């Protein structure tokens, strides 16, 4: 469990940037999207999403903006910035290399 939590913690930024890079989203939408795509695998307290989003915003990787929905409710949408796109590309590249290397090691050796 701790191992999973650590893995998630180490990749939170990349996951959030990846989700926002496709389409700008607000907090609750991000939670629903994570639930849907991971088929409920990622379980965490929803309130902890916001410190993570605000950390990314402080680092200039995302930009938050209040927008009014058709039902006149207001939601804060997060947009990925150019810097965020660059960081995401770097993180994805590192992740690809890492997972390829891990897979190469853990797969049984074929004779």
């Amino acid at each position, binding site marked *: 469990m701790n191992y999973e939590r650590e893995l998630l913690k180490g990749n939170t930024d990349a996951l959030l940037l990846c989700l926002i890079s496709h389409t700008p989203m*607000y*907090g*609750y939408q991000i*939670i629903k999207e994570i639930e849907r795509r991971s088929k409920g695998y990622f379980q965490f*307290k*929803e*309130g*902890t999403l*916001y*410190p993570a989003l*605000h*950390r990314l915003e*402080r680092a200039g990787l995302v930009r938050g903006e209040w927008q009014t929905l058709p039902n006149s*409710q*207001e*939601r*804060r949408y997060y947009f990925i910035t150019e810097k965020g796109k660059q960081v995401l590309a770097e993180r994805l590249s590192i992740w690809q290399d890492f997972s390829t290397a891990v897979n190469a090691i853990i797969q049984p050796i074929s004779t």
Partner: protein
Amino acid sequence: MITRLANYLDNLKNCLRLSSEAKKDMLREFYAHLEDRSQELQESGFSEEEAAEMAVKHFGPVKSIAQQTYEIYSSGTWRQAFFAALPHLIISLLFALRAWQNIIWLIIVLLMVIGVVIYGWWHGKPVWLFPWLGYYLIPVIVTGVLLIYLPSNWFLFAALIYLPLALFVLVSVTKQTITQDWLYASVMLLPVPIILGWTLALSLSRDFLSIHRQIQEMASWVALSFLILAVTVATFIRVKQRWLKVSALLAPSLVVLILVAIVSKGTINFWLWLGLASLSIFLILSPAWLERKITNS
């Protein structure tokens, strides 16, 4: 709004240590999220109260969210650290360059402090404002020290009027500053015991010419003490963890008071030093108690 959600958001509001503007924005975002989750749960068949309870449970413990948020916003930028350290740096320079006796420089510094404080106060009380605000308390300290020069029969009478008034000013200003975070009031009060220490070291001599000569002799040490204060404040702004912030305020102020005692050549004896050190600890930590009292009331 459902009482459960309102109570939860109230708790968050009390625990979040952010500027009023950032806090308002954050709570608005939290409310929107809880509203969405609660509505979705109601649509799936839960009652309004059950949905609110579950939404709050999904959102997580208030203290943990507040802590995580604090660690994001608690570390200021280098620019904020510089602006926060600037008033101490200016005082340090005044003494290092022997400009403390130049009335033009003193007026410029005074106008600068007034201008910066007014600007900061009306622009959401940013973190760099509080060290500047501390210099507003100098007249209160100096007035107190000047009471020593009164004839003994007037001294008691003046002290009886001065002490409650000084305490009232100190508590009122502190109360105004702790609305965001009690530590900002501590930063504001940080130079008070040091200024008091230097003023006592000088004022215990009743000969004006002697005071002037003593300031000349001590000027470099006074400059050094304010330079230490500047570094202390910059460190306070930059570090993230709360316990580090408290340590960053406590340790250097006690070191500076040792410096004051050594340079005073016995004018500040051990007991006087102990009094100043106790005052320093009290001024740094008492805003926490005051904040708790205000929150509970």
